[in-house]
């Protein structure tokens, strides 16, 4: 059997047409190509640009174990009842030591595995900070090109640093569980700001009502911009509260056609670029070889011979020089 180079222009064109026609294997391969920056990834992304924009993208974030995956499972069930097609990107953390990862989110979504209207992909953060992975923006576009009505993005559950999803998603669901003071604390320290819908999950447990009123109190203290935030309660494990949540989500999908809705969806590219550049600089600094110019800069900084701001500017310049040098 003769093999054509999978990164070649012809191979990418074939993959794109299979992707656009809804072939599952093509979607899976295209995601891998873009996720890993394989040959042909840029050409693939360029080719799908005219076919983007159908899907409504929802970020789903919150502390570990709060029920993000279980809520996605319940939301898939509800949206499928309404005839919607759903794509899921579920991110789990990579081990900083080995680089490996156990991707377990879809254990909770097992009942949808055989449904042709649902596509779930598990991804590892691979050292990227911010709750997603470095190439998330492109992978969301690939999923969008395959035609689902909704894309659900489950972040790594740190509860604090997932602010980047607010630029990738049309709306963000922030989950918390009742009666855990820590959760409220985590939400206070950052992610409350990105919530379009605050979900108090595990409403079957005591103190859900207290948590709701605490959150409403916190929202009341914030600026007028926060006034559009909804607070809902769910029991993801039984599906309780899901119809009301799905109603809110469908309203957000309809709103995307308003000018404000369109603006919101267009910030992702800027965020993706800033992230990718930041990751690149970080990797170069952390992996610089002994007595390379970057290593020498780090030594000077460690000895206090150069100030942080100046050293950072110098680092960016050195990284750029290295790229020119075509390593």
């Amino acid at each position, binding site marked *: 059997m003769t093999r054509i180079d999978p990164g070649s222009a012809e191979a990418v064109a074939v993959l794109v047409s299979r992707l656009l026609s809804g072939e599952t294997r093509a979607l899976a391969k295209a995601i891998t190509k873009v996720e890993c920056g394989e040959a042909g990834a840029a050409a693939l992304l360029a080719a799908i640009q005219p076919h983007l924009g159908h899907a409504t993208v929802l970020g789903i974030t919150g502390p570990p174990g709060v029920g993000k995956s279980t809520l996605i499972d319940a939301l898939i069930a509800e949206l499928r009842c309404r005839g919607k097609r759903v794509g899921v990107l579920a991110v789990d953390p990579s*081990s900083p030591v*080995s*680089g490996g990862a156990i991707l377990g989110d879809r254990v909770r979504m*097992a009942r949808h595995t055989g449904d042709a209207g649902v596509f779930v992909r598990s991804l590892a953060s691979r*050292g990227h900070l911010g709750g997603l992975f470095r190439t998330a923006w492109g992978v969301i576009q690939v999923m969008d090109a395959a035609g689902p009505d909704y894309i659900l993005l489950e972040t790594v559950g740190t509860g604090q640093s997932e602010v980047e999803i607010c630029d990738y998603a049309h709306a963000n669901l922030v989950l918390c569980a009742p009666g855990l003071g820590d959760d409220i604390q985590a939400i206070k320290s950052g992610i409350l700001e990105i919530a379009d819908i605050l979900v108090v999950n595990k409403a079957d447990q005591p103190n859900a009502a207290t948590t709701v009123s605490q959150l409403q109190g916190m929202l009341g203290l914030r600026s007028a911009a926060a006034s559009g935030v909804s607070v809902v309660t769910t029991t993801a494990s039984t599906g309780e509260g899901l119809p009301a949540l799905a109603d809110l989500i469908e309203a957000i999908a309809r709103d995307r056609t308003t000018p404000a809705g369109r603006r919101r969806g267009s910030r992702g590219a800027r965020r993706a670029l800033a992230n990718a550049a930041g990751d690149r600089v970080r990797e170069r600094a952390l992996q610089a070889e002994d007595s390379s110019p970057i290593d020498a800069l780090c030594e000077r900084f460690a000895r206090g011979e150069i100030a942080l701001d100046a050293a950072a500017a110098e680092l960016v310049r050195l990284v750029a020089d290295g790229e020119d040098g075509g390593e």
Partner: protein
Amino acid sequence: MSSPGLQGGRPAKVLVTKIGFDGHDRGSRIVAAFLRDAGMEVVYTGPWQTVENVVNLALQEDVDVIGISSLATDHLIVPKLMEALKTAGLGHIAVVVGGIVPDSEVGLLTDAGVAYVFHPGASRDQIVNTISGLAANARASA
């Protein structure tokens, strides 16, 4: 810090699962942790998968290797899985079986295309090295 995923390639991606009726998944959890600690990305699903589900999981996740853990007679379903993978255009994926497989039945599995059968007591190194080698081959022939 080793970060093979950041070099343009990707770490080996392995689906660790159980088919059939046996629900003991302790062995597969241990293997999943071995593979993670060796730098691989492991999609973990828990027990009781059907053949159709394993094919769908492998398809959506674009894995290089499927590891099936079998304690009872679940491995007897594996030849059906091999057929179903081929039909789905996933013949490049390497399938390994681990657990209690009687010697007399190993041939049945390898004849069906199973790449490797691990017996109880297989060492961590043996598991990790075999699977990472199979993953590299599967990637090259995808």
